[in-house]
C-alpha cells in the first residue's frame, strides 16, 4: 500500500508539471474542472441565445406582425428557424452540456475521490468536438436561406427535401451540428462511465457513491444506448438531403415514419438522460440542507435503473397520431403510464427525506425544492399525453408544449441553478450572495409559472403549435386567448430580466464575495474535503481520500456534529 502510494505520488508530481502555461492553460487544459467550466460557460452562452430566440418568437405570437425590439419584424421563415433552433439549442447545447458535461466533469472525479478523469485527453477532445458543433450551428443561422426551420424533431419530408423547408444549407448544417454534438457526448460519456467504474477512492463501494455521479453515469449509459439508431437515422437523413437518396421518401420506397421511430427511440430516453443528473443534484442538495440521511438510497438507485430500462419502450407515445396501429398505441400507453411509477417513487423518497429533517432554506435548497414541485406538474400532465385516447385531442397543441416545458425547465434551468449555487463555492472559492440569490430564485420561478400555465389553458382551448400568426385563425384570436398569450410573453420578459440579477450576483461574488471555506454547507461528500477551488489533481497526491461510509450520514445519533464526512476513519 505504502509503495503504491509512493508510485502514485511520483506519477502525480509528473502529471502536475505537465501542460501549457498562461491563457492556453484554460483553452488547452486536460483538467476535468477546467473542461467542466468550458462546457458550463459555453452552455450559458447558448442559453442566452436560446432565451433571446424565445423572446423574439413569443413577441411575435403575442403581438403578431409588430417589429420586435432588438430583432425587427419576424418573417415566417425566421419564425420557423427561431423555434427550431430554440428547441435544439436548449436541449442539445444547454441542458446536455451544462447538466451532464459540465457538472459531470466537475463533480465525478471530485465526488469519487480521483485526481482526474481516466482519459483526460479524450475529455478535452470531447469539448473540442462540442465546440465545433456550436460553431457549425451558429454559422447555420446566417447561411443563405437562413437557419433550419423544420422543428427540433426534424421530421421528413419537411427536413429531407429543400423544396419544402427552403433551407438547403441550413438544414444540413443543423444535422451535422447535432451529429457532432452526439460524438462529443459519446466521448464524454465513455469517460464518465469508465471513471466511475474504475477510479473510485479506496473503500468506496457501489452504494457509497453519491447520487449525482450515479445519476450522471446512468444518464450517460442511457444516452449511449439510445443515440445509436438516431446516428444511423441522421446519416440517412443527411444522404437524403445531400446525395439524393430516398430513405424517407415513400415515392421511392422509403418511409418517413422510420425517422420518427429512430428519432423518438433516442428522443424519449433523452428526457430521462437530462432528468437524471438534475434528480441526482436535487437529492444531494436536499440531503445536505435537510441534515438527514437520504431516505431509501437503494430505492432511488433501483427506480432509476427501472426508469432507464422502461424508457426504451415508450417512444411511440410521440406518434399516436402518426398512423401507428391502435394495438401498438395500447402497448405504448401502458409502458408510458408504467414509467411514471418509478419516477413518482423517486419524488416520494425525496419528500420522505425532507420529513423530520432540520431544513435550512439556503438558495440551493430553494432551487432543489422548486425542482421537485415544478417537475411534478410536468410529470402529472404527462399522464394525459401518455394515454393515447387523450393524446389524440391534445397532440400538437400548446398543452404538449407547456407539458414538456414543465419538465425541461425544472431540469435544465432550476436543476442547473441548484447545482450551480450549491457548488459555486467549490468551483470558484467564493460565496454567492444569498439575498441576490433569493431575489433571482423568486424572480425566475414565479414568472415561469405565469408563462406556462396560460399555455396549458390555451392548449386545452385548442391552440395549435407551430402557427406563425394567430390572426390568420379567427377562432384562435378571441380576446381571452390573445390576453393569455400576452400574459405568457410579458412573464417571459420579466423572467429573462431577472436573470440579470444572477449575472450581477456571479460577477459581484467573484470580485467581492467572501472567501469560501473548504466545506461551507457541512457536506459529507468528498469534494468538500479539498481546497476551494481544488488545485490541479484535486488533492495532494499522497493525501487522496479513503472512504469509510456512505455519503448521506447526516444527524447520526452517536456523533456530536450532525454530519459525518465519508473520509473520516470510524
Amino acid at each position, binding site marked *: 500500500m505504502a509503495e503504491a502510494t509512493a508510485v*502514485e505520488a511520483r*506519477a*502525480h508530481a*509528473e*502529471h502536475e508539471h*505537465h501542460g501549457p502555461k498562461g491563457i492556453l492553460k484554460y483553452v488547452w487544459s486536460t483538467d476535468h474542472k477546467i473542461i467542466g467550466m468550458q462546457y458550463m460557460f459555453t452552455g450559458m452562452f447558448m442559453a442566452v441565445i436560446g432565451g433571446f430566440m424565445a423572446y423574439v418568437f413569443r413577441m411575435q405570437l403575442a403581438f403578431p406582425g409588430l417589429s420586435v425590439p432588438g430583432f425587427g419584424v419576424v418573417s415566417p421563415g425566421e419564425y420557423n428557424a427561431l423555434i427550431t433552433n430554440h428547441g435544439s439549442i436548449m436541449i442539445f447545447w444547454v441542458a446536455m452540456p451544462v447538466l451532464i458535461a459540465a457538472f459531470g466533469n466537475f463533480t465525478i*472525479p471530485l465526488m469519487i475521490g*480521483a*485526481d*482526474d*478523469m*481516466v*482519459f*483526460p485527453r479524450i475529455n478535452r477532445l470531447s469539448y473540442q468536438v462540442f465546440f465545433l458543433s456550436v460553431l457549425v450551428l451558429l454559422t447555420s443561422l446566417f447561411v443563405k436561406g437562413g437557419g433550419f426551420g423544420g422543428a427540433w424533431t426534424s421530421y421528413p419530408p419537411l427536413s429531407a427535401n429543400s423544396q419544402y423547408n427552403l433551407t438547403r444549407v441550413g438544414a444540413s448544417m443543423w444535422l451535422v451540428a447535432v451529429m457532432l454534438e452526439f460524438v462529443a457526448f*459519446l466521448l464524454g*460519456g*465513455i*469517460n464518465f*462511465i*469508465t*471513471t466511475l*467504474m*474504475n*477510479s*473510485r477512492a479506496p473503500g*468506496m463501494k457501489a452504494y457509497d457513491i453519491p447520487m449525482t455521479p450515479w445519476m450522471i453515469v446512468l444518464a450517460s449509459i442511457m444516452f*449511449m*444506448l*439510445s*443515440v*445509436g*439508431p*438516431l*446516428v*444511423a*437515422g441522421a*446519416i*440517412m437523413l443527411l*444522404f437524403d438531403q445531400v*446525395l*439524393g*437518396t*430516398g*430513405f424517407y421518401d415513400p415515392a*421511392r*420506397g*422509403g*418511409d418517413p415514419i*422510420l425517422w420518427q421511430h*429512430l428519432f423518438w*427511440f433516442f428522443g424519449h430516453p433523452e428526457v430521462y438522460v437530462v432528468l437524471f443528473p438534475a434528480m441526482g443534484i436535487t437529492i444531494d442538495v436536499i440531503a445536505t440542507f435537510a441534515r438527514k440521511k437520504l431516505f431509501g438510497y437503494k430505492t432511488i438507485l433501483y427506480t432509476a435503473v427501472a426508469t432507464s430500462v422502461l424508457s426504451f419502450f415508450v417512444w411511440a407515445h410521440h406518434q399516436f397520431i402518426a398512423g401507428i396501429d391502435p394495438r401498438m398505441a395500447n402497448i405504448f400507453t401502458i409502458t408510458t403510464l408504467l414509467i411514471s411509477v418509478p419516477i413518482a417513487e423517486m419524488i416520494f423518497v425525496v419528500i420522505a427525506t425532507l420529513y423530520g429533517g432540520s431544513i435550512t432554506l439556503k438558495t440551493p435548497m430553494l432551487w432543489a425544492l422548486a425542482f421537485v414541485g415544478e417537475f411534478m406538474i410536468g410529470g402529472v400532465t404527462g399522464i394525459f399525453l401518455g394515454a393515447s385516447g387523450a393524446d389524440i385531442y391534445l397532440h400538437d397543441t400548446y398543452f404538449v408544449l407547456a407539458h414538456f416545458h414543465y419538465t425541461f425547465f425544472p431540469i435544465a434551468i432550476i436543476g442547473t441553478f441548484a447545482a450551480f449555487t450549491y457548488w459555486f463555492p467549490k468551483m470558484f472559492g467564493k460565496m454567492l450572495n444569498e439575498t441576490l440569490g433569493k431575489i433571482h430564485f423568486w424572480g425566475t420561478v414565479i414568472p415561469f409559472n405565469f408563462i406556462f400555465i396560460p399555455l396549458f389553458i390555451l392548449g386545452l382551448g385548442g391552440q395549435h403549435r407551430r402557427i406563425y400568426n394567430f390572426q390568420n385563425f379567427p377562432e384562435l384570436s378571441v380576446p381571452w386567448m390573445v390576453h393569455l398569450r400576452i400574459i405568457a410573453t410579458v412573464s417571459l420578459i420579466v423572467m429573462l430580466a431577472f436573470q440579470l440579477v444572477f449575472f450581477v450576483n456571479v460577477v459581484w461574488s467573484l470580485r467581492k464575495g467572501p472567501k469560501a471555506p473548504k466545506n461551507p454547507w457541512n457536506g459529507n461528500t468528498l469534494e468538500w474535503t479539498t481546497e476551494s477551488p481544488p488545485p490541479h*489533481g484535486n488533492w495532494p*497526491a499522497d493525501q*487522496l481520500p479513503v472512504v469509510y461510509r456512505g455519503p448521506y450520514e447526516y444527524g447520526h445519533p452517536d456523533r456530536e456534529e450532525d454530519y459525518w464526512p465519508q473520509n473520516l476513519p470510524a
Partner: protein
Amino acid sequence: MKPIATTRSATGIPTGRLAIWWVLASEIVIFGGLLGAYVMHRIGHPEWANAAAHTHTMIGATNTFILLTSSFTAVLGHQAAERGDGRKAGTFLVFTIIGAFLFLTLKSFEWASEIREGFTIQANGFWSFYYTAAGLHAAHVLVGAIVMMFVARDAFRNRELQRVEYVGIYWHFVDVIWIFLFPLLYIAK
C-alpha cells in the same frame, strides 16, 4: 503522464479494456439501428431482391475471408503482446493493417464496377442501404487501420503493449459487423 485515476481499477478490469467495450456498446446500437431499418424495409419490399441479385457475392466472400484472416493475425499479435514480445506483436498488427487495406481496395473496385453499371446510391432503396451500411463499415475499417498503425509503432518500441489487445477487440467487432452485413447484403437474394 497519466493521472492516478487511470491507474486505478476498482472493477479489476483494466481501464482501457473497459472503455473499449463501452465504445463497442455504443457502436452496436448505431449498426443495430441501421440494419434494423434495412431488414424492416427489405421485408416490406420483396422486389429489392432484384437489385440484390446484382451484388458480387464472390468479391464479398473474398473480403470476408480477408477480414477474418486479419482478425486472426490480430489475435496472434495479442498473444505476442501477452508474452511481452513487442516486435512480434507489431509485426502481426502490420499483417492486420495490410488485410484492412486489401479489404478496402477490393471494395473500391467492387463499388466502381457497380457504379459504372448504374447502381448508384440513388438507384433505389436497396442500393441506398447497401452503400450506407457498407460505407459506414468501411469507415470503421479505415479508422481501425489508422489506429493500428499508431499501436503497432508503439508495440515495436515495446510501449503500451496492452493497447494491442484493445485494438484487437475493436477489430473483432468490425469483423462481426461484416459477418452480419455479408449475408444481409450479398447472400439474401
